[in-house]
């Protein structure tokens, strides 16, 4: 399964699961789907048969509300079966609406409260440096998550400790919970801010797999790397794109059918 196929699978399975479980955050998951797909298809060194393999790359989904994208990718890559995935948000399931590690193979760290995962990733990166290990630590944060002060605490820290094994990908869809970021807390030019904190910063189209692959494969950075991935919230379903409604709403009836029809047409 190539990255485009995986991205499509993430969106389709997400649509089904969110529809069935009446859960939220479908637009955030669609926003990050291509980034997750490229990471799992082309970048991360993982072993689904040995999820705790010492030399694996670490992926921490700091924007834990998009956890279903991670769960679907893990399932498609063989970390667990589809039956387990289908328990998402059901009574007794270990698959919460926000990422949780307990009894979920392949999940490194639980998140859900923003501004935590990226800091844990910094700690993992520092430990890898001290241990002379060569794996890389990837973390995906949201742009709204950059409102959290801890993000900037760790931005300073990672620069000071020269954590060039740490890669932060910002899913920059320009929207957060209630409105566009610019109408909430102005982020202005995110890339400039990270540059000012001493990071190697790259800007890409977060739905362009070739651009994502290129920037993620590059390991020549001497500083911690920040990839500002410009994305569209709700990407892949026309009426969800850039529509704040779909941060929380779950698609039912005609919305579900229309969304499925659009996704089916876009099958790679």
């Amino acid at each position, binding site marked *: 399964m190539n990255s485009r196929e995986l991205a499509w699978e993430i969106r389709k399975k997400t649509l089904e699961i969110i529809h069935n479980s009446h859960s939220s955050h479908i637009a955030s998951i669609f926003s990050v789907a291509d980034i997750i797909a490229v990471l799992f298809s082309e970048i991360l060194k993982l072993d689904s048969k040995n999820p705790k393999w010492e030399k694996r790359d670490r992926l921490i989904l700091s924007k834990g509300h998009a956890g279903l994208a991670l769960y679907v990718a893990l399932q498609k890559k063989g970390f667990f079966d589809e039956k387990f995935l289908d328990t998402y948000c059901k009574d007794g399931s270990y698959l919460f609406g926000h990422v949780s*590690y307990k009894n979920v193979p392949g999940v*490194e*760290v*639980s*998140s*859900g*409260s923003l*501004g*935590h995962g990226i*800091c*844990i*990733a*910094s*700690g*993992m*990166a*520092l*430990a*890898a440096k*001290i*241990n002379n290990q060569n794996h890389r630590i990837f973390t995906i944060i949201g742009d709204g998550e950059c409102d959290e*002060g*801890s993000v900037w*605490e*760790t931005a*300073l*820290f990672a620069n*000071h*400790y020269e954590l060039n094994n740490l890669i932060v990908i910002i899913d920059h869809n320009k929207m957060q919970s209630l409105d566009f970021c610019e109408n909430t807390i102005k982020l202005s030019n995110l890339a400039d801010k990270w540059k000012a904190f001493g990071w190697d910063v790259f800007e890409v189209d977060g739905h362009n797999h070739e651009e994502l692959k290129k920037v993620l494969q590059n390991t020549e950075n001497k500083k911690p790397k920040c990839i500002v991935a410009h994305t569209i919230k709700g990407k892949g379903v026309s009426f969800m794109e850039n529509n704040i409604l779909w941060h929380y709403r779950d698609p039912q009836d005609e919305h579900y059918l229309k969304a499925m029809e659009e996704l089916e047409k876009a099958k790679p």
Partner: protein
Amino acid sequence: MRETFFTELYEIAKKDKNVILITGDLGYGLFDKFRKDLSGQFINAGIAEQNMISIATGMALEGKKVFVYSIANFPTFRCLEQIRNDVAYHKANVKIISAGVGFDYGTLGFSHHATEDIAIIRAIPEISIISPCDLFEAKIAAEYSYKNNGPFYIRLGKGKNGNMEIKRNNFDIKKAFEIRKGKKIAMFTTGSIINEVIKATENLQKQSIDVAIYNFAMIKPIDKEFILDSMEKFDIIFTLEEHRICGGFGSAVCEVAAEKSKKARIIKIGLKDDFTFVSGSPDYLRHINEIDSKGIENIILEYTGRKGK
């Protein structure tokens, strides 16, 4: 107390390179030797406690045994969610070492008073809490927390008590320790405020009131069996802590005691539901909050019906 703790930790870290010490830019002079000799195991995370706790979690999840240091309010209140979501939920091998108990930093202002930390940390699952009363227990706390995997919160007083003059052969940190025998009245205490208890009980003895003293180095998990036995043995049990009475050590004792109906009643001594708005030395602030030896003595006299006699 913190010197004793970190001297012990230095010896441990010398033998185990996976021991990491992270400070939140505090501990002036305290870590000079550690920093010089074990520079690869020492990290200053700067004045950023939220990040510090998450960094510690990340390192612990990669196999490090991480000791985090800061003063009283900083490694607790400031980063509570990181302690709950990151350290505790992941059962990360992180030990949070907090210097300054209650009013240790009395003159620095209410911001630096550690008077609700036990209550707050105690409510979080998976974290063991140690509250040493003197240098002996501080050293044991370092050893014990190193040897036992998982989250710990260790509350270190300034340690001006030095060491209690009492033999502690076969000391078990998990168990309540008898400091003084007595029959009807008992005082359960934790942390460095024990010196006030000893003074109070000496005065009470002169008035023919015998008070047994039991010290709890470990608050969570607490010595449940001993508490339940004591409920049968004593008529009245006082608990004492340099901390608010809401949710702290006394509350922990009451929670156990309430499980079974026994004969003893429990009176909690500690800080009331109010801030201390004035500056002062630890002794002064203990005094005005009535948790100094005189205050303790008065409360015991009141509840034993001897006040004014």
